[in-house]
């Protein structure tokens, strides 16, 4: 169907500019050997995949490796992906990045501490000091350490909330697109985003508390005696 459409477009000389083409069309053109279409998809999604991977693994080098590998997987599957079942290729790539990030952690068996987070007071400021004479939220969120801490906190959210946030902020998908992708209503997606933001606050508070304890020389154990660590 898509191929016929493409053929007619070529015949009529009415092919749209690649940069404006839909993902569905770009996948079809890539499957027909048009590397320029693949390059448009790469430009459209590489940075998004890198950001998602960075949230997942917390390391720039590994995030690049994962984003690159995700694209290679897309290319290897391009003949099966055509015709693309959803309007956007992003959800498919998103899932691949998630799997690659899990593989990454299985290999590394890594449990990361939160010792590189910013000052705990600064973290708490993010949500609690808007009316104080201290820094405004805009100034606080502009700090690199705070941004890194937020990405770290995102990695600890419940999966369904995190997915909605990633689709919205990284994939820049509309509420309707997310709803279709995860099989929920638009209202439910809004609710997930709402709960995700509130949970982010809780996570950041926990990170700040843990950091305070660590700086005081506490053992870093909770009331049950379990070591408090951030698992990705």
């Amino acid at each position, binding site marked *: 169907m898509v191929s016929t459409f493409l053929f007619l477009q070529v015949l009529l000389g009415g092919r749209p500019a690649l940069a404006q083409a839909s993902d569905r069309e770009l996948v079809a053109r890539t499957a027909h050997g048009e590397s320029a279409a693949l390059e448009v998809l790469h*430009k459209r999604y*590489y940075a998004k995949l890198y950001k998602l991977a960075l949230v997942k693994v917390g390391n720039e080098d590994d995030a690049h490796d994962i984003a690159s590998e995700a694209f*290679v997987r897309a290319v290897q599957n391009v003949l099966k992906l055509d015709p693309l079942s959803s309007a956007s290729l992003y959800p498919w790539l998103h899932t691949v990045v998630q799997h690659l990030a899990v593989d990454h952690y299985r290999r590394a068996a890594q449990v990361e501490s939160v010792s590189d987070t910013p000052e705990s007071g600064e973290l708490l400021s993010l949500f609690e000091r808007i009316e104080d004479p201290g820094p405004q939220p805009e100034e606080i969120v502009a700090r690199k350490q705070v941004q890194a801490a*937020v990405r770290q906190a995102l990695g600890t959210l419940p999966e369904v909330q995190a997915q909605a946030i990633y689709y919205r902020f990284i994939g820049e998908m509309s509420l309707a697109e997310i709803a279709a992708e995860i099989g929920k209503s638009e209202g439910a997606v809004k609710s997930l985003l709402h709960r995700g933001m*509130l949970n982010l*606050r809780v996570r950041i508070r926990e990170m700040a508390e843990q950091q305070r304890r660590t700086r005081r020389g506490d053992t870093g154990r909770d009331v049950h005696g379990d070591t408090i660590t951030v698992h990705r």
Partner: protein
Amino acid sequence: MSTEILSQYIDELLAGRERPLQEYLLKHPDQREELLPLLVGALAVHRSLKAAEPAPSREEAARRRAVEELAKVLADRDDLTHQGALTRLVARLKRALGGGG
């Protein structure tokens, strides 16, 4: 209601229309307490992801790798077509006739 406002705020952020947070909160004074952590959270997520841009050299290397992979995939696919089968048949005939290849 706060869920709706959060949703609109995210829309504005993604559209590149980032207004001062205080100004936005003043529009909804009755819900300020509830909105504050939501909007600050959305702003923090937006800024932290926006700031994490990939290194151009790594992006370019990844692009080249993807294009090379596409060439391999298409070569493998073409080899399964009638043309590929014909090429293999000719090669086998040449070998059978002692013509090398």
